[in-house]
């Protein structure tokens, strides 16, 4: 492979991974904006999306139906999580720190449940289409990468349209900006919190379904993906949806090239270093820098 195609190869895998990070990160940022807390259990919803759809597919459901049902199940679980853990804690005036630790608790409970149900084996989800990998300028492209990229772009566009053009989407943004004002125009922040956890559960599951054909699905696949999504969100400045998307792609590309440099074992460490450094050095995210510069 020529150096150029090598670079292209890294870029493709970076974009593929990055779009997954971006997708999960959007869920994180939206929940954070609405509820003021990071849902550290979100990675486990990614796992569930992948494993549940694989199980349903194996049980004989058509692939699409399996996907839809898995997303619904994850959404329902997100709602249950909000009602049984987050909402009561808020009522008891729990601190943010307590709430965050609660989401960690929910996360490992789900992970333990996945482990009990599915064990430690990797499962395979068939790619969305049957084409063979092809080469572009010397770089190998697997069709699933295109699916992931394409679907991620569709999802992002749909979310964007939702927030920009629909009444509900605008209402949500209003609530983010001002809770009291939102109440005045008849939006109930509590219900919005429920909606946020439900929707991000679904979004996480979707990301899991996209990524499963590329990486295999295991009970602990979501943990690192979820963490990487945090890195993406933090890169983008925590409250900023476009920032999270850019952060996701940046991290994906950084990792893809990082693997070439430091080896795959240290790849995850790279993301952690990026996360800690950004929090310490530029807590407003990299986009903050761009904005100020512009």
């Amino acid at each position, binding site marked *: 492979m020529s150096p150029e195609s090598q670079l292209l190869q890294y870029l493709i895998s970076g974009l593929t991974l990055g779009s997954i990070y971006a997708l999960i990160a959007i869920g994180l940022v939206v929940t954070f904006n609405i509820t003021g807390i990071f849902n550290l259990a979100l990675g486990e919803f990614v796992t569930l999306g992948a494993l549940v759809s694989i199980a349903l597919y194996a049980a004989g459901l058509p692939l699409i139906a399996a996907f839809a049902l898995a997303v619904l199940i994850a959404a329902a679980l997100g709602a249950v999580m909000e009602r049984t853990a987050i909402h009561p804690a808020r009522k*008891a005036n729990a601190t*943010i*720190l307590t709430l965050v630790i*609660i989401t960690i608790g929910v996360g490992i409970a789900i992970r*333990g449940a996945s*482990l009990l149900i599915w064990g430690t084996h990797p499962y395979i989800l068939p790619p969305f289409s049957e084409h063979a990998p092809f080469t572009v300028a010397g770089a190998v492209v697997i069709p699933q990468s295109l699916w992931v990229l394409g679907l991620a772009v569709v999802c992002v566009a749909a979310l964007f349209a939702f927030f920009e053009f629909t009444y509900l989407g605008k209402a949500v943004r209003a609530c983010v900006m001002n809770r009291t004002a939102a109440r005045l125009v008849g939006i109930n922040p509590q219900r919005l919190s429920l909606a946020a956890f439900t929707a991000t559960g679904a979004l996480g599951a979707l990301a899991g379904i996209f990524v499963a054909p590329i990486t295999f699905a295991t009970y602990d696949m979501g943990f690192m993906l979820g963490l990487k999504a945090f890195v993406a969100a933090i890169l983008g400045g925590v409250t900023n949806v476009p920032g999270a998307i850019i952060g996701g792609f940046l991290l994906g590309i950084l990792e893809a090239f990082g693997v070439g440099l430091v080896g795959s074992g240290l790849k995850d460490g790279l993301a*952690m270093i990026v*996360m*800690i450094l950004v929090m310490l050095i530029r807590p407003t995210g990299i986009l903050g820098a761009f904005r100020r510069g512009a």
Partner: protein
Amino acid sequence: MGPSGAEHNNFPGDEVELVLRNKNVILIVLIAALFAVFPLMVTSGYYLGILVIVGFYSIVAIGLGLLLGYAGQVSFGQAAFYGLGAYAAAILSGTYGWPPLLALAAAPLLPAAVAAVIGQPILKLKEHFLVLATLGFGILVYILMKEFVDLTGGPSGYTGIPYLSIGGLVLSTDKQFFYLVWFLAFLTLVGAWNLVNSRMGRALRAIHGSEPAAEAAGIDTARLKLKVFILSAFLAGLAGGLYAFYISFISPSPFGFHASIQFVLMAVVGGAATIWGPVVGAFVIVGLIEFLRWAVPVVLPKAGGEFEIIFFGLILVLALLFRPEGIMSHKRRKQRSEPDAGKEAAGTCST
């Protein structure tokens, strides 16, 4: 109406000493005696081994309890300090041939030094960011343990840790480790108790109560938090060093994220804002793990891996929802009987 009862206020320390002389001394002596004779009575190596492990965890959890319950800070990377201590002890004695006792003494210094370096910036972070930063740090250290194969042996582990020997006495049995670990755990408890019941302990609780007011009272809150963070890392490292010599073979797996969660759980379940709480938490959690490892395969024969985390998660959520102060907390709030306290206050400043 001036309160005439003001004269009988005693310094709380006097009270404590008095009480110590009566109730608690008996209790402590009883518990100590129980610990002393336990290894003589128990013939099952299984139970003794578990209690040794509980001893390691207690030391870690006491340190984390100080951080969590007194300084009001959290660390989801405590297992990394535990692991750093273990690897430091192993590598210094195994690879570099240090006398094991010296290696054990040096082991806590590595995590303490690391905590001193990272603590300054990390403890400035709040809430999510503190959680994520400590969690990220823990994962980073875990990855480094796996990847620095030349030094650590990588995922397949580090072998060749010599026996710990203290002045010619070679420690090789569970019984010996039991006494060593619990002796050190007891010292840790005493030290923590001393700290909490001192000027510094009051300052720590003050930070927990109100950081601005603590600063306004002249407390360097950032520095004090850092000191507790370093202390907690030191204790985790000490426990890790002991663990390395006890187990004589270490690999990265007990030092991962789940172990960090486990430590937080011990502190939270036991009640982080008491000195005893984390020790009780260590007993409860280790007991639970052992019970589950026995019970779950009976129900689900195919279950494997660390499935106990499902219960960790549930307990963590339930504990935070229903007993945020932990099972050890007994709110010692004496109910005031005079309803006319407000009236008294009227004449308050006139003396």
